[in-house]
């Protein structure tokens, strides 16, 4: 395999569906090398796209992915921690321990491991951009969403501290928290409840995918090297 080492390499988690897939397709079309990962096979093909099947709740799988990136691509410029799970809305009183553990493993622990390994790779070029995908849930604190909300709040806090730890390495870390976007995943959510949560935003309609790429394009620009540790809520949550 011949890889063009002049192209920027972007890693996005959860790239087989939803926003992750849209981001992978978008940055492939922008001539980035995109490495995506998910439990299942790739759901699209592109000459710039390289897919890895893995379970991000298993550290060994994550280490293997980074070994592959180090070996085949030699660099990593951008990490987008997108993969997350959101169990059915359920009262905190009824949450089983295994559910709590699994959601934290995917939404928080995996994101932390991806940040750790990405930072080591980004150190090679003393530059990098890490985007952790957040949620308006962390702002609105919706009843029944305690588990998901607490994982996203943890990710917010982690991002702000990590930003301080890696700033000297030329790496920025930010959270982008989109308003709900119409995808096959959001279509499965209770639409009445979703509308109610959206009504708490300054902009009460669904967000657009272009809103997400607009802010990520801005954050990954070289000139955005002073923007770090920020939690950016799209739609005005």
């Amino acid at each position, binding site marked *: 395999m011949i890889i063009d080492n002049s192209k920027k390499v972007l890693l996005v988690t959860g790239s087989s569906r939803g926003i992750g897939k849209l981001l992978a397709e978008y940055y492939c079309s922008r001539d980035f090398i995109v490495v995506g990962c998910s439990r299942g096979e790739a759901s699209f093909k592109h000459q710039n796209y390289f897919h890895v099947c893995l379970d991000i709740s298993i550290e060994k799988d994550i*280490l293997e992915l*980074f*070994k592959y990136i*180090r070996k085949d691509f030699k660099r990593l410029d951008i990490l987008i921690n997108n993969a997350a799970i959101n169990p059915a809305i359920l009262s905190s009183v009824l949450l089983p321990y295994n559910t709590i553990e699994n959601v934290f493993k995917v939404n928080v622990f995996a994101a932390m491991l991806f940040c750790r390994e990405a930072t*080591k790779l980004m*150190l090679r070029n003393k530059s990098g951009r890490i985007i952790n995908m957040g949620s308006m849930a962390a702002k609105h604190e919706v009843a029944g969403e305690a588990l998901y909300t607490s994982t996203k709040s943890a990710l917010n806090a982690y991002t702000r501290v990590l930003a301080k730890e890696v700033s*000297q*390495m030329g790496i920025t870390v930010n959270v982008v928290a989109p308003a709900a976007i119409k995808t096959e995943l959001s279509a499965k959510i209770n639409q009445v409840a979703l509308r109610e949560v959206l009504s708490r935003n300054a902009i009460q309609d669904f967000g657009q995918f272009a809103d997400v790429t607009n802010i990520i394009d801005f954050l990954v620009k070289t000139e955005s090297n002073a923007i770090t540790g920020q939690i950016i809520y799209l739609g005005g949550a």
Partner: protein
Amino acid sequence: MNTLELIFASIDELNLDLEENEKITKTEETNLFGSGDSLDSLALINLITIIEEKIEEETGEYISLADEKAMSLDESPFKTVTTLKNYINSLINDN
């Protein structure tokens, strides 16, 4: 390359990026972590990362130096070049 040579090669690589007064001395007694004249956190992270990469180049295996075992030891394996050398050897033997 033995482990000490690998650490020294990593120090050489790191020193390329450091100012003259920050350069790390290549001795087995060099303090890396936890004492007054040890490395700052950024230099230590850089050094550990370079060493991990060199181990992977040499052995084909990725070994995380800052693992649970390292965190639980009474004496940090990152204290000096010698403690780091011994720790790396123990990890390679365990692997």
